[in-house]
């Protein structure tokens, strides 16, 4: 019996420290019982797929945030990766093929190419931030624009379709039936990377150095941490994550265009922040990032089910960001 009481207390404390999550669960339950189809396997699968891709992007940007940086180029990098994947993976017999002289490529080769391009952009960001000491905000503001430019140039601002069906089928694939309970493959990709990042953040020197730099960069440097290379690695890894997300996003959407991924960096940063990643550095966990992203995606679906004019979504999402972070910061203010 005593155990139960303790658990109840614990749950209450947990609820108190995560009011926005509690609020959202409450709203979802209400929406679930007042509208039909909210509690459906299809909706769950949809939520998982959406969250999975956003989670990968947020994982990438989380390292930048923990080291007091940011990455505004995330969204455009996702867009570039999506377009690049699209162009390279178009069917050989597709009439609207953008680059007709490129042979039809294997989807895994394309993945490798896209990841390499992501790595190069990440490396560039990391180099500018760590070696040239340009503030991350400005650096990535610049590269964001450059990346978008390149994306427009090589797609000629044309939408890209006609993908190899093996690619779209595999990535939008699932375990289980379309009509009943199913789990999208994307869930497993997200879970694998979540675990990988948890391992990197908690169990490797790179992760510890990352938190140390966020906590006090000078102290880390003086303690013999190679701060430059650690920061470089963080932006490099981020670039790879955006590329992966872009590759998956193109398949999920069944098409790509230069405008894809626009604003995703802000959603990712917001998700991280809602999930407790501190903008003052040194604080943030992988489970936190997951919760933050989930909150955001849940919110979108709830609004959709409530039949709210989509334009209002932005207003509500913005409010949630501010309120969530304000509540989170209050915890620290109260302790003073």
């Amino acid at each position, binding site marked *: 019996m005593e155990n139960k009481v303790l658990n109840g207390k614990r749950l209450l404390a947990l609820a108190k420290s995560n009011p926005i999550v509690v609020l959202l669960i409450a709203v979802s339950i209400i929406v679930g019982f007042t509208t039909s189809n909210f509690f459906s396997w299809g909706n769950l699968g949809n939520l998982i797929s959406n969250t999975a891709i956003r989670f990968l992007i947020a994982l990438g940007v989380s390292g930048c945030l923990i080291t007091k940086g940011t990455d505004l180029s995330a969204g455009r990098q996702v867009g570039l990766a999506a377009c690049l994947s699209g162009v390279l993976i178009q069917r050989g017999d597709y009439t609207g093929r953008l680059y007709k002289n490129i042979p039809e490529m294997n989807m895994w080769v394309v993945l490798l190419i896209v990841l390499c391009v992501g790595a190069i952009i990440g490396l560039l960001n990391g180099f500018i931030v760590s070696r040239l000491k340009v503030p991350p905000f400005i650096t990535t503001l610049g590269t964001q624009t450059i990346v978008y430019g390149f994306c427009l140039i090589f797609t000629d601002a044309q939408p890209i379709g006609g993908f190899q069906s093996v690619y779209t089928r595999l990535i939008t694939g699932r375990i289980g039936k379309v009509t009943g309970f199913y789990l999208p493959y994307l869930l497993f990709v997200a879970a694998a990377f979540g675990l990988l990042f948890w391992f990197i953040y908690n*169990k490797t020197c790179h992760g*510890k*150095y990352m938190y140390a730099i966020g906590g*006090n960069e*000078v102290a880390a440097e*003086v*303690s*013999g941490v190679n701060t430059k290379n650690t920061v470089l690695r963080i932006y490099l890894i981020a670039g790879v994550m955006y590329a992966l997300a872009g590759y998956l996003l193109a398949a999920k959407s069944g098409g790509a265009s230069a405008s894809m991924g626009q604003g995703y960096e802000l959603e990712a940063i917001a998700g991280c922040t809602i999930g407790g990643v501190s903008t003052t550095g*040194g604080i943030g966990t992988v489970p936190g990032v997951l919760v933050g992203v989930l909150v955001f995606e849940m919110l979108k679906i709830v609004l959709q089910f409530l039949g709210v004019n989509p334009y209002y979504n932005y207003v509500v999402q913005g409010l949630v960001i501010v309120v969530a972070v304000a509540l989170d910061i209050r915890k620290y203010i109260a302790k003073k």
Partner: protein
Amino acid sequence: MSEYLLEMKDVSKAFPGVQALNHAQLKLKAGRVHALMGENGAGKSTLMKCMFGIYKMDQGQIYMDGKPVTISDPIDALSKGIAMVHQELQPIPARPIGENIYLGRYPIKKLFGFIPIVDHDKLYKDTEELLKKVKLPFDPRQHVGTLSTSQMQLVEIAKAVSINCRILILDEPTSSLTQREVESLFSIIEDLKKDGVAIVYISHKMDEILRISNEVTIMRDGNYIGTWEASELTTNTIITKMVGRELTNLFPKRENIPGEVVFEVEDFTSINPKSFRNVSFNIRRGEILGVGGLVGAQRTELMEGIFGIRSHISGTVKLNGKEMRITRPKDAIDQGVAMLTESRRASGIMGVLSVADNISISSLKKYLDYGFAINNGKVESLVQDNVQKMNIKTPSSKTLIQSLSGGNQQKVVIGRWLANNPDVLILDEPTRGIDVGAKYEIYCIIAELAKQGKSILMITSEMAELLGMSDRIMVMCDGKCTGFLDGKEANQEKVMNLATKFD
């Protein structure tokens, strides 16, 4: 009319897990300097922050001129004539002195009779008069960032004076001042006393307290111990009351025996012509070499140069006869040199990280499984080993280091360096901002390390510490090494002679 200008009665304040103030009190008289003393964590700063409206008291009452008042925030405190110079300065470096001093209360004039704008002429004229009054030779338009730390502190004090306050709180005002600057501060204080200002003076420096103050209030662990006339007290009685026990030995007995020369620095010169020049010295195995000098003697800069934080243009560093190439701290660490930096907060601790993370950060590679996965068990045993050896008081290894006291934080950072088992350990002001009890413990650790054969370079600005802990003393003045003294034969006069040997 009350005898007291301000009274704080029965003040209690609790933070999560700690009773910071427990029925504390303070009574201030006009025109008197009231010293507030106690170890770090005794509650002095908390009490002052309650008076200044930064913290809300859980219990207690403040009276001014015998009437009960409530002070809700710092603005309220200022309007009631209470000013405070904080221990940690917060100037705006990129703005002129004048704007810093009148920040938040700029003189206003009306453009065309109705558009309010800042009256810069009056601002700078007022600042000039103020600076003249407190005898500071600065241009009001000079940017604060161009001043040294001690000069900033004097500007901060001038700012407090400009408010025409009735009560002035000085929280460790002389911690970074040179002797000459301390004298000018004292003359400012004398002038303020004549104007009837009550001054609260917080400091750890006994000689200053006994010289400048009229009354002394002593606190311990948040409790009020008592108030005495300064003339009734001596350094020893103050320490006894602060610590609550007799301190017979200020320094531990040292059993280290210096051996052969292990570390040699020759003709070391900074890239900055105003910094250290042509410095040569050596240190033996198991020797403690104290480094003395005035603030600004470039001692920190020299050590940071050796450690690779700053650049040098010429000179050699040899460890065990082998020349070292050091361009960054990592190079020095890899070759067996460690350095405890001067400012714990700025370059020592990583506040939001745990004790375990802080202690293991520079030796993480030692605790890996399969070459990449950190073994938490090994890190934990490192923490426990240090907790035991150095008597670090922490609830657990997961506790955030920022919630520990200064002394315990310092021990954690020392532990970080010892984990690499260095041959040479550079300690820059190892006991700054640490209370008396923890200081003794740190001295014991240093003595023990020397006994184990480590070579220790210790920069210190406390004369007693320099004389009490060193086997040999190197004195610097204005970037140059001006001489060496044997630890047993050295005295304050000899050190000061070398420390003031300007060209």
